Structure formats: C-alpha cells, structure tokens
C-alpha cells in the first residue's frame, strides 16, 4: 500500500460526473452559508429590534448589490437543501442505481435553480 507510484492525475482532463458536481457544490454552498451566518443573524436582529432598524434593513436590502448577494445566498441555501434531501433519500435506499444517481442529481440542480428564480422573482 505504501509503494511510491508515479501519479498522473491530469485534473484538467478528468471530467467530474454530475453526482460529483452536486457533491462539491453541497460543500461549497455549505461553506458559503457558514460565512453568511453573521450577516444573516444581523439581518434577523435588525428586522426584530425596532421599527427603525427594520426600515433601515429594508433600505439596505433594496440596493441592487445586496439583492444580488441575497439571491446568491438563496441559491446556496436551496441547493444545499435539495442536495441534502437527496442524501437523505440515498440513506433510505431510494437511490439504487447509477441511473437513479444521475437522474436525482439532475432533479436537484433543476429544482434548486427554478426555486431560486421563482422565489427571487417574488422577492425582487
């Protein structure tokens, strides 16, 4: 097991399969949501503390840049949410074959993106 073998991992040639893309996006969105936590808690605090901070938050969120940022966070949440449900389905043996794995990955991508568009359009 400890033989020193040469490795030829041509990373630019290795194509990540769709379930792999879902998996790495699950990690990236999870990390992103972790870094967004203090901001989200601050927003919760401002929304609840007083009518003044509530209106201040509304003004801050009306800015186009913060809308784009919130849209990214919303997508991150929805992707992490859908991919997480897929993992729970895998745990419960609902995903059995390679075909299931690929199809459910497509569903995760599709559902999280369309929910982002629908909810984003509603909030915009």
């Amino acid at each position: 097991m400890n033989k020193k073998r040469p490795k030829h991992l041509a990373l630019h040639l290795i194509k990540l399969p769709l379930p792999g893309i879902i998996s790495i996006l699950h990690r990236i969105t999870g990390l992103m949501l972790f870094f967004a936590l203090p901001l989200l808690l601050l927003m919760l605090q401002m929304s609840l503390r007083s009518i003044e901070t509530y209106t201040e938050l509304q003004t801050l969120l009306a800015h186009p840049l913060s809308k784009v940022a919130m849209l990214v966070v919303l997508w991150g949440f929805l992707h992490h949410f859908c991919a997480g449900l897929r993992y729970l389905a895998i745990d419960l043996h609902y995903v059995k074959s390679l075909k299931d794995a690929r199809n459910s990955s497509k569903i995760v991508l599709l559902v999280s993106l369309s929910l982002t568009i629908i909810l984003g359009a509603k909030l915009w």
Partner: protein
Amino acid sequence: MVNRIVVGAHYGLRDWLIQRVSALVMVIYSVSLAGYLLLQNHLDYDVWTGLFANLAMRTFSLLFLLALFYHAWIGIRDIVMDYVKPASMRLVIHTLVVLALIVYTIWSVQILWGM
C-alpha cells in the same frame, strides 16, 4: 494501538446521525416559515414581530438555530479534515469555528429574547 487524533472526528456514527436529525429540524422549520410568509397577504413589521412574540415560535426558532450551528460545526470540521492536513492549523481553525458558533448561540438568544 489506540491512535486518536486530537483534531479528528472521534464519533463518526453519532455525528452522522446528528447531521441528519439537525437537517430534518431545519427542513421542517424553513418549509413552515416560508409557507407561512408566502401565504401572508402583506408582510410588515407588526406581522413579523407578532410572529416572534409567540413563545412557541421563539423556542422553535432557537431550536432551528442550535440545529444549524451544530450542523455547521460537523460540516466545517469535515471540510477542514479533508483539506487541511497540519494538526496545528486544524486546531486553530477548529477553535475559531467553535468559538464563533458559541458566540452565535449567545447572540441568537439575545436576538430572540432581548427584543
């Protein structure tokens, strides 16, 4: 030989289970909250604070946030264990993440009960 790494996971099955239970708590909370908010005709400060004036809502919200923080700890720790190899760096990152999450916990109680 017992070879335990200080900055390792230690309790694989327990954390695996907590990750899933906390995920379910968050699913139920976020779907209920989103459903409730989407069904409101108009949403203003009074409706929003009125919702959080309810003790059950505050309790459920804190439960959601605690589940979120524990879930985040397991997730971040797993990422760190995969990509950060030196034990000293792991220790520093783990400590910072744990401290941040404890501060977020205290902050959450202040937000929900201090308004």
